């Protein structure tokens, strides 16, 4: 173990790093840090677009970033491979030597900070590292040395969806160190944008679950001195609910955070099972751009028409950026929606979030409170990858497609909240009874069903030709 101003990292990673002063000077010399892009987008009330992107080989990654830059994104990503995410740096490096194309992302720790700087300098827009590591400390140290000014993750959102058995106490402390180093940097004038992964397990995540986790992580980050937070919410599929959730990011920030912390709402375009035809997938990508603007997001993370099949090629990824940007464009500024319906949704989302987080925040020891709440099911997420959340909550879509709690497990909801969720999910008279699995599967495949009712071309060459069904 080595200590980088409070960030504990492996001796091996530390030995390869430049001097800390060099890192700080390099970060400070970056012409356009992520926070400035976000501020400008916020001021213009039009979100910038960011694709996810990461391939194994360094030359290929440089090429990918350059090609994507021509599509006009505001920020570009360095998406990290699964081995690096899980701290298996040796596996990542063996695979990089043997078959780099077999990596599902860019192994930044293995490539090292010097190559990282080549990525940073290859494009004019800032980069963000997107990963999914319950413990992203080594990766963060390399990312900073590479001049990367935006870093995704948090002690809950990058643990429960991404690993099997990492105790929350461990991931929360690891991310506390990341946040504290951001605080140190902020004090010397370098603002690192910290994005919180409200997307969680991505499939049928109720908005208040996503936002409750984000609020807890945001409070923890702000306490360590983080000055710029991007709060990401995943598009669920019902427009009023999605707009309301994005708006709630700002009201929740005002309620729970020090006003000195800049908070930017971010929309992750639909993160669940994606439509399979290029036409319908493209429409959903366009709609995501529009919803991001209507919800007041500063940034929208785009998808591609190859999402259902595998990691996209550069052309499809660039097309996704352009399509999402069209969704944010003024050609759609005439679009109006039911304001009172959005206001009502927002009211209930905020109320549910408060019922989830207030008891946890009331405890003097935030991390211990978070851990016990998950152990007891007072906080919970659906479809958890980790054994440290119970996954007793069962989400369902209501008749309009909005995501509700069919079973809230042990979440401490008031009678009013429970009544509303139950009422919205009541089956219409005479509806055919379905098993819980059938119902959940249909809700997961929501956009596949909608797509199949339209006269579209058959999906193109694919992993499997028919949409997966149970």
């Amino acid at each position, binding site marked *: 173990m080595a200590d980088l101003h409070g960030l504990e990292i492996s001796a091996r990673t530390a030995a390869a790093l430049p001097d800390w002063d060099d890192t700080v000077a390099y970060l400070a010399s970056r012409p356009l840090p992520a926070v400035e892009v976000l501020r400008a987008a916020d001021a213009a009330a039009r979100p910038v677009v960011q694709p996810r992107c990461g391939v194994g080989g360094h030359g290929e990654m440089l090429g990918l970033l350059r090609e994507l830059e021509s599509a006009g994104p505001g920020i570009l990503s360095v998406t990290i491979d*699964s*081995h690096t995410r*899980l701290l*298996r740096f040796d*596996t990542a490096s063996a*695979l990089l030597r043997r078959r780099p*194309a*077999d*990596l*599902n992302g860019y192994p930044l720790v293995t490539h090292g900070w010097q190559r990282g700087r080549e990525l940073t300098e290859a494009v004019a827009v800032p980069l963000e590292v997107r990963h*999914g590591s319950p413990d992203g400390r080594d990766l963060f140290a390399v990312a900073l040395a590479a001049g990367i000014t935006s870093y995704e993750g948090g002690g809950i959102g990058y643990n429960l*969806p*991404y*690993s*099997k058995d990492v105790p929350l106490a461990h991931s929360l402390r690891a991310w506390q160190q990341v946040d504290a180093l951001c605080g140190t940097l902020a004090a010397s004038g370098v603002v690192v944008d910290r994005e919180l992964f409200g997307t969680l*397990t991505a*499939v049928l995540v109720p908005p208040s679950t996503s936002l409750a986790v984000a609020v807890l992580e945001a409070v923890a980050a702000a306490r360590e001195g983080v000055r710029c937070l991007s709060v990401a919410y995943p598009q669920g599929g019902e427009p009023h609910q999605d707009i309301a959730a994005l708006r709630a990011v700002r009201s929740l920030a005002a309620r729970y955070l020090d006003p000195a912390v800049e908070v930017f709402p971010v929309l992750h375009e639909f993160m669940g099972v994606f439509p399979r035809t290029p036409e319908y997938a493209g429409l959903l990508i366009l709609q995501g751009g529009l919803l991001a603007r209507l919800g007041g997001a500063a940034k929208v993370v785009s998808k591609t028409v*190859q999402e259902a*099949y*595998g*990691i*996209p*090629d550069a052309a*499809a990824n660039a097309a996704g950026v352009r399509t999402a940007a069209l969704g944010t464009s003024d050609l759609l500024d005439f679009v109006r929606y039911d304001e009172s319906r959005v206001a009502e949704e927002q009211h209930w989302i905020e109320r549910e979030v408060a019922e989830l987080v207030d008891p946890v925040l009331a405890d003097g020891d935030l991390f211990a409170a978070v851990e016990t709440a998950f152990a007891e099911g007072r906080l919970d997420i659906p*479809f*958890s*990858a980790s*054994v440290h959340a119970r*996954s007793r909550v069962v989400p369902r879509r209501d008749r309009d497609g909005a995501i509700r709690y069919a079973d809230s497990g042990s979440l401490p909801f008031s009678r009013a909240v429970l009544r509303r969720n139950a009422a919205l999910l009541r089956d219409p008279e005479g509806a055919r009874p379905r*098993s*819980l*699995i059938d119902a*959940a*599967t249909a809700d*997961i495949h929501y956009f596949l069903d909608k797509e199949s009712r339209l006269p579209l071309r058959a999906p193109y*060459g*694919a*992993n*499997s030709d028919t949409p*997966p*069904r*149970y």
Partner: protein
Amino acid sequence: MDTLHGRSERLVILGVAESDAHAVANHLIAMQLREHGFTVVNLGVCTPLADFADALDRHPRAEAVLIGSLNGHAHQDLRALPELRAAGRLRRPVVLGGNLSVGSRTTDADLQRLRDLGVDHILPDAGGLVLLLDMLDAAAREPEPQHG
């Protein structure tokens, strides 16, 4: 680890490959098999192959070992299969499903690479799983062909 007890004697081992955290199909497949009466020893996400072998040692009556891989890393994550088999372990049909290579197209060569490791059955989706398990079960009950 989470064991869902079914009504019958039938038991399978289920899990997701070592580097892979995709959990949704895993949750649903466990529920689906249980509805069909299986006892499911669900090892969950991020499960090294050696853990599947250990689970089989603990549950020798398991009919098959079911592995999901969605993140494209199936080949790397299953590389220890020949070694484990050579050591006399994981001697049950290994059924693999999911998204089996990096990129938007999985080629025959990608699938062959996996079969070469010793993967016995590859299914594009979980719909055909119970049928496959029934066929494997019937084949296992058939008397060994008599020679000479």
